[in-house]
């Protein structure tokens, strides 16, 4: 009797545990992602740059820099770098001479060219694809990004899965709804960049976009880019995986590879695999040339995962006149990637920055933008990245989190807060244009990183 009870209790405990395990995706995200920082900005806007809650407000808080980290990170991150303002600030003097008063942080100019598009600041909304979460919040994010003047991406498969203009799935905007939500809300800054993967190519996605009359005026104005995707941070070398409802799967049966034929299964959902797409240097070269020939009025972006030969990709893209390359580090977000891929494949974001620094030293000038992605979400990340040669930070998840908590307003708040944060930091460095920020403004808390990036190690005499 007692044994039976113990057994039952054990079973119950295991089941409880099991149900918690199934919550993993969300729990890990909340535990691990800097969700508080983003939420605070989404709710409070510019005020959110200060670490005040309802209890610790202005004048009552006594906060200093936190020295503890939750958990122990397995690899180095951009947070292992710090920004090092000087006491003597000749650029501030210059700015003062221009303004005839002491400059403040709001005087900092953040406007930059990103991959041939004009952006109000060095921040870009990553191309997010057709997954439920990316799709559900896409309109709010599109509108907010357009109104705040930062470029906005539309990822692969949206056309194939959600429909080009008519909706294929209920409750999810079509490609056209997404792109127009952005374009019609845009003012003098911003632009949209659009991916096409192997399956979208089947539908001639780019051709369709390029001859779409509603997009034409924006294409003429130079506000549209096409983004070639060569892998992504969370699963370099692997294609996308998506779970689809059976009836939706039947519609796209010939374009995707399904492990189980959706016509023959009785399951409600089936897993759909897209191909990662095969590249060689020649194929990429040919692809860019073909795009320049076929779509002379759009900019060309190349997004690449944390691959060891990323410098070769950058070189080919530069030689063929692409407008931007984005390196997506392994911390990059994803709709769905195998755990082992997220843990083991590819290198951390900070290594992407080392590659960018190297590319710049190799002679890749600012005719081509180099962007960095992967768990970058605040003003410090933007300034550090710029200081090391990146043109902008390319981020996805922060916008989704902000949209989840407060819709379009949340995303606008987040962008504004990040803008103010960036301006503050740049002004603290004694500079008033983000383009003046350089490697002298950063130092490293880690010796190896210092060497790799060619910047001083803080705990040393040469600093």
């Amino acid at each position, binding site marked *: 009797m007692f044994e039976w009870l113990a057994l039952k209790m054990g079973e119950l405990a295991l089941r409880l545990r099991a149900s918690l395990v199934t919550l993993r995706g969300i729990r890990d995200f909340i535990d691990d992602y800097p969700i508080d920082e983003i939420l605070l900005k989404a709710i409070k806007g510019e005020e959110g740059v200060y670490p005040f809650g309802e209890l610790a407000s202005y004048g009552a808080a006594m906060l200093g820099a936190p020295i503890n980290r939750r958990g122990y990170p397995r690899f180095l991150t951009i947070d292992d770098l710090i920004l090092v303002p000087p006491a003597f600030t000749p650029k501030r003097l210059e700015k003062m001479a221009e303004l005839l008063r002491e400059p403040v942080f709001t005087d900092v100019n953040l406007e930059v060219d990103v991959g041939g598009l004009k952006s109000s600041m060095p921040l870009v909304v990553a191309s997010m694809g057709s997954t439920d979460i990316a799709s559900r919040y896409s309109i709010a994010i599109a509108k907010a990004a357009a109104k705040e003047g930062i470029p906005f991406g539309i990822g692969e498969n949206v056309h194939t899965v959600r429909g080009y203009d008519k909706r294929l799935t209920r409750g999810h905007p079509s490609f056209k709804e997404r792109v127009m939500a952005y374009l019609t809300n845009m003012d003098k800054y911003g632009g949209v960049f659009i991916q096409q993967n*192997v399956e979208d*190519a*089947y539908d001639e996605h780019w051709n369709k976009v390029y*001859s779409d009359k509603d997009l*034409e005026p924006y294409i003429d104005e130079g506000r549209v880019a096409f983004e070639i995707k060569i892998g992504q941070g969370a699963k370099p070398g692997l294609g996308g995986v998506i779970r689809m409802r059976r009836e939706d799967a039947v519609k796209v049966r010939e374009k995707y590879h399904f492990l189980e034929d959706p016509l023959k299964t009785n399951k409600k959902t089936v897993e759909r695999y897209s191909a990662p797409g095969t590249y*060689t240097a020649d*194929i990429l070269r040919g692809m860019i040339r073909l795009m320049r020939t076929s779509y002379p009025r759009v900019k060309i972006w190349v997004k690449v995962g944390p691959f060891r030969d990323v410098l070769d990709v950058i070189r080919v893209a530069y030689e063929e006149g692409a407008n931007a390359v984005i390196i997506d580090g392994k911390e990059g977000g994803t709709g769905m990637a195998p755990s082992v891929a997220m843990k083991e494949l590819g290198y951390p974001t900070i290594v992407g920055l080392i590659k960018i620094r190297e590319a710049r030293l190799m002679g890749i000038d600012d005719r081509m933008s180099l962007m960095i992605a992967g768990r970058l979400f605040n003003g410090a990340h933007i300034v550090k990245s710029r200081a090391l040669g990146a043109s902008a930070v390319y981020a996805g998840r922060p916008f989704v989190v902000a949209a989840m908590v407060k819709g379009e307003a949340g995303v606008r708040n987040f962008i504004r807060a990040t803008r103010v944060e960036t301006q503050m930091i740049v002004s603290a460095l004694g500079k008033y244009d983000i383009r003046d920020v350089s490697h002298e403004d950063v130092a490293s808390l880690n010796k190896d990183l210092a060497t790799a990036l060619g910047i001083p190690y803080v705990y040393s005499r040469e600093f």
Partner: protein
Amino acid sequence: MGHGNMGKVNPAVLEFEAMVKDKESYIKFIEEWVKHSWRWAKEDKYVTVFKIQASILRAIREYLDSQGFIEALPPIIGPVTDPGIRGAKQATIDFYGHEYKVMSSAILYKQYMAAVLGKVYFVSPNIRLEPNDSVFTGRHLVEFFQVDLEILNGTLDDAMKVAEGLFTYVTRYIKDVHGKDLEKMGRSLPDYKPPFLRYTHAEAVELVNKLGCRNPSNTEILWECEKVLSAYHDAPIFIYQYPKGSRGFYNREDPGKPGYLRDFDMLYPEGFGEAISGGEREYEPIKVIARIRESGEDPNKYRWLLEMLKDFYPLKTAGFGIGVERLTRFICGLRAVWEARPYPKVAGIGPAP
């Protein structure tokens, strides 16, 4: 012959250029032109144009037949079609649950039929949903006809020679048969004498840059620059050896000059622009697959072609296509291709007959 007659643009081409300067009024004009085409198609001028067009086709057939080519009926639909069409979209139909394409060109079937018949040609209808801005080129129709030929075991040079012979024969034939008609239309055609000038792509780019049209070195010759080049000559010219990547996957890479293709274009003189596109075909399956990836596509889509290339290995062919409406435009000295077809389909404008 040759060049030196710099900037001699045909008056019809100049008239077209003047028309498109004011985009709004041009669009208004073209809408009316396309939507009520029967109102002008019966005018004397166009009756003559369509008669000359019939003679052009007769002359083409006469010439090709005399050279040992066999005419085959063209395909109309298939699971895949020519993807190398400069940003134009393909038309899709539902084929019993499969997605089929309407031929944007018969290219993939030419290799097929060359394997069957040796020297072959199609007079084939093509559909290309061109980008909207193609309305302003005067050279693009959404629905058009192409004489598409292919030579089994042919080379680049073989194809270029057929192009020269064909062009010379047809122009002489039309001058003989329709001399008075041409005179009435104010069109004078010289006696063309092959061989025509041949430029490599690199030489052509250098030349257009010298003529003041800026063209990037590794891309297709821009429409604007093509016109400058065409206007610079009073006989057709060839441009060959295009850089890889600027063309469809079926154009063969030169094994002796990696990065360049064994392909060519022929341009009409007097600013009329591109006449012919052709070359040798890639036949190594792995090379074809790599080239297909350049357009971002899954080679699986082209499975029948790849299987055929393996079965018929090595399927070496060369050939070219010549647009019938463009040839008509050139011979009759018309403003644009939409005068060379009684029911022209122009990008973005419809419904119309």
